[in-house]
């Protein structure tokens, strides 16, 4: 299945901003994070199609996955 992955803040360094990637069915959010070599402990927020999701959420074809480190402001 095709997943659009969007990375933010320092997760972009040495990787990409947005890419369409191919994954086997039932890949989880954590699976993508590990595949990209991102330290899962540094992940603050993940969203599938603009909704927050848990790390064990299974992705579906066409999903847009956003991966953020812990960030804040205001």
């Amino acid at each position, binding site marked *: 299945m095709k997943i659009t992955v*969007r990375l*933010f*803040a*320092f997760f*972009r360094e040495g990787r990409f*901003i947005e890419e369409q990637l191919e994954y086997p069915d039932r890949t989880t959010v954590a699976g993508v994070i590990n595949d990209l070599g991102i330290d899962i402990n*540094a992940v*603050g*927020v993940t*969203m599938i199609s*603009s*909704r*927050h999701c848990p790390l064990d959420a299974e992705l579906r074809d066409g999903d847009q996955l*956003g991966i*953020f*480190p*812990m*960030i*804040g*402001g*205001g």
Partner: protein
Amino acid sequence: MSDKIFRVNMTTLTTCVEEVPANWAGHGGRGLTSTIVTAEVPPTCHPLGPNNKLIIAPGLLSGTPAANSGRLSFGGKSPLTGTIKESNAGGTAAQLMARCGCKALILEGRPAGNTWYSLAVSPKGVTINVETELIGKGNFEVVSTVTGRIAKKHALISIGQTGEMRMAAANISVKDSEGHLRSAGRGGLGAVMGSKRVKFITIDPQDGKVAIADPEKFKAANKIFTKALTSHPISQGLGQYGTNVLVNIINEAGGLPTKNFTAGQFAGHDKISGETMYDRIMERGGKPKHGCHPGCVIQCSQIYNDLKGQYKTSGFEYESIWAMGADCCVDNLDHIAEADSLMDDLGLDSIETSVAMGVAMEGGLLEFGDGEGILRILKEEVAKGTGLGRIIGGGAGLVGKTFGVARVPVVKNQAIPAYDPRAIKGIGITYATSTMGADHTMGYAIATNILKVGGSVDPLAKEGQVELSRNLQIATAAIDSTGMCLFIAFAALDDATCLPALIDLINARFGINLTGDDVVNLGKYILKTERAFNEAAGFTRTDDRLPEFFEYEPLAPHNMVWDFTGEEIDSFWDF
């Protein structure tokens, strides 16, 4: 040195130094400004009349070595909202005022003639001087001229031309350690200072120091507190990307108000994001990390240079960038930086003014996205105080009325900032119930709704939001009394050592024994005091409501409306 109240009467042009009344002694920052406003300002007075007062108070810990303790509170009755107002800023003034032994400066009355004045604060008290040279000048010229006049280290508080013209979006600026500006932005207190004909205030602590009752305990607590701040990952992100790191996450969550609050996502989001800003700062030799006062260990501020590598602006914050950016559909970060610099110089709240521009765009004044047009209006209309300029400087509500626009994002006439309450419902409760009008900093529900700090509440659901906003608003009111920058809250929400260390700092400073419960009670007292002022000024629960359009215009991408009932909102005050 024991702390005193410094009082300046601008009607009689006299000053005095008074003992601190017993029931003010435990207060600082917002708790003190709101206590004094409630005690001394008639709630029904005209905000620009002789009976309003401008209160300036450092926080309880300002002037000590405590990390991030340099916020200065400004209070009075707001010309924008008609409510009580507290707005705070960084810079060096809080620390130096505290070192003068000044617990609060009360500015009252109003001179009869057309003469302008400046004030000089020192440990001996305040002197009033006639000012001519800097009248009609912007904040930058005030900073450079006053720095030339006073060779030694001093702090400076000033208003720009818009404060002199008493525009309701006028702010008060405070010089930072490098001669740049930080602003007490919201609510038009710059107009109150202008109504009293005070252009600027200098502060010279001479050899004044803040006494600490138990220095050993203080040192130990500060070590724990500083470590909690610096080790939190969010503090680290703030240092790299500044608060503007939020553009992309709020956009991704569908809550980035775009095109005068008609969409929740902005196509140009990445062009104005913290990530892009960081790259540009590095390319142009700026500084991504910068503190607004000595002692800040988080350093969310930055130095942003223009294309030629020349200094353009600092303290370039998410809310300002969102407002001039997504809300006005401007995706050119350099135009936004130029506007930010102009607004700093003119002394304008960048949230109120930019949201006002968005409403004016909807009213047909400019096309959405016309960054050049915005710059022209700031320079040729607002700076000169033309009719149109004064309407823009009067805030989003006034612009909406003038241009016949129904979609006017204000609560109690104060512009709603950078988070759409339809997609992030917790912040909507804060906007509705805050004693200050719409203000995200009063109860930052974004932390829990979006950033997942201090727990997790679904941003699109109503459950838990009222309670969340209540707890946050109570805690914030207490933090705003300490002189602490609000960004300590991320560490405070996540790290169990942070808040006890903060309370220990206060106890060691004053030789007292506050508990966590005392701090919560302080927050509750402040909110209730402020609300009582507003009620006496004529506000009722029906003012605690969001603009109607949020109820009938669904917001893409989630297609949600604002659906809290009045009763549900009012339950906020059940404490």
